């Protein structure tokens, strides 16, 4: 944990906005630059920023390891689940056309959930990689 007061105050001020920006990038992805991948990276960056300023244990309290590992898997399942849902509604795999009453809405709904899945997995993987590097020496000492 850093003792620098400026960094800690600024970090606390900025992190909520970084997370908010991640959500903006996520949901504005249909109309502007952005989408699940970028949003996932930004959200993970907020947590990494937090870990750098307040220390890894604090970040791990906020986003524990089991949660991160589950996120990695969950996002893929959400993505694939959209595909399976298309099959259940009588279309082909990853068929978004059948997801709503008309095809345009179906496409929008399909890509929305796919991007949600992407964001979950990407931020999960980013944090997993960060935790593994940052916690390497620490975890070994604990053993």
């Amino acid at each position, binding site marked *: 944990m850093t003792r620098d007061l400026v960094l800690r105050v600024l970090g606390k001020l900025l992190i909520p906005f970084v997370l908010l920006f991640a959500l903006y990038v996520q949901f504005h992805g249909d109309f502007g630059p952005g989408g699940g991948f970028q949003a996932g990276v930004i959200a993970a960056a907020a947590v990494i920023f937090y870990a750098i300023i307040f220390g890894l244990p604090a970040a791990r309290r906020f986003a524990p390891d089991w949660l991160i590992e589950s996120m990695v*898997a969950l996002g893929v399942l959400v993505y694939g689940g959209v595909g*399976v849902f298309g099959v259940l509604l009588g279309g082909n795999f990853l068929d978004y056309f059948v997801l709503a009453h008309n095809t345009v809405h179906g496409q929008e709904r399909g890509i929305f959930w796919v991007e949600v899945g992407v964001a979950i997995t990407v931020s999960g993987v980013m944090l997993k990689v960060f935790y593994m590097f940052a916690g390497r020496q620490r975890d070994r000492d604990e053993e």
Partner: protein
Amino acid sequence: MIAENLPALQVVVPLLAAPLMVLVRRRTFAWLLAVAVSWTALAIALALAFKVREAGVISYAMGSWPPPWGIEYRVDALNSFVLVLVSLVASVVMPYARTSVAAELPRDQHYLFFSMLTLCLAGLLGIAITGDAFNLFVFLEISSLSAYVLVGLGRDRRALLAAYQYLVLGTIGATFYIIGVGLLYLMTGTLNIADLALRLRDVHEMRPVLAALAFITAGIGLKLALFPLHFWLPNAYTYAPSAVTAFLAASATKVSVYVLLRYYFLVFGIPLVFGRLPMAEVLIGLSVLAVVSASLVAVYQRDLKRLFAYSSVAQIGYITLGMGLANEPGLTGAVVHLFNHGITKGAIFMLLGGVSLRVGSTSLERIAGLGKTMPLTAFGIVIGGMSLIGIPGTAGFISKWYLILGAIAHGYWWLAALIVASSLIAVAYVWRFVEVAYFRAPAPAAAGLAEAPVSMLIPAWIMVAGCVYFGLDTGYTLDGARLAAQVLLSSVR
């Protein structure tokens, strides 16, 4: 609903089962799901193979976007054969893996191991089934990345180095492949493999196409361990966990061979590859070098896993030899050898897993008297070895017979003689095992050795039985391979 979506389910079932295992984090659940998934995949592959024989090519539009714009899954006689091989191997290896993995990996990694193995299966099935050149690259990466992890999990520290070596060379291979695909896309504007073949005929500027052919040959050559690009293979197979070696040896290189077959015969076409370019001579030359040199190197190995890994390089040489012959018997031999060598090597490496579990090593010095201490395992390896040699009555004989027919059809009598002669080198390396296992007294330390656990012996012996069965009843394998060869040759007009 399920029947129309079989091509997608072939890949989707293992692809979604893998993250589910990570989410649940229970090793027994992961194993049960992995077994269930691999058996489902086999059922789907068999159903697809049956459908293809009845009704011809199956085309499936991912997301209902019609090909060639959307991603197409396309099942024909060639890749349905590969799908059956991969899922068959997986459905035998998965039940086997539980005991083997329990002995070789820390407990908390088991669910991750099965997740990775299932992911690798999904990738390999995806490579085989997809009709889209870029989608193929994605699945190539899925299967390769999970394979690197699986190799790195070996309990020997050298496994990490082997995995790293595999990673570097495998990534170069994948990069070369995608550069080749990029060049083809540049020239044709399509990524659909069937469409690519059609449009390539109207391309007159040949230089980028030739560059693409070169990149794809080198890239996929790395993946399938074509001589002299095989240096990653012996280490990877030697140090990987036993179940992984059995699975990868029987499936991963075979799927890459399939990719090369598809590109040579159905995308670039025989007139270009074998008419204008001397690829036949190149392939036959490299294959002969692979068969002879890798077999000779195998003779001098001290470790059984490494010995049979070099033998794999040699056996892949036979497959590419059939590819280079480019006539019906030669290609039939190549395709049927994909299958026959797959089950033979699967059987041998699974039995070696039992050896390494009981003896603690697979080095030749430690296994003296194995015929007495572990009779079933030793005898199984001998049968597998006979199939590698190509003794009549085993699966290996069928493939070599067709390769010889293919060589003779070209008038290459020297090549036919060479195929027979190279089998003698195989006799030499298999004999080394026989001598140590049967004609040497067990070391005093080996007195208390028991036979491998039943849960490993049964799956391994199913494979051994397959080596003999497919040597006697060639109905399924040969017909399938012949149909596949006809598909490959159908582009000649």
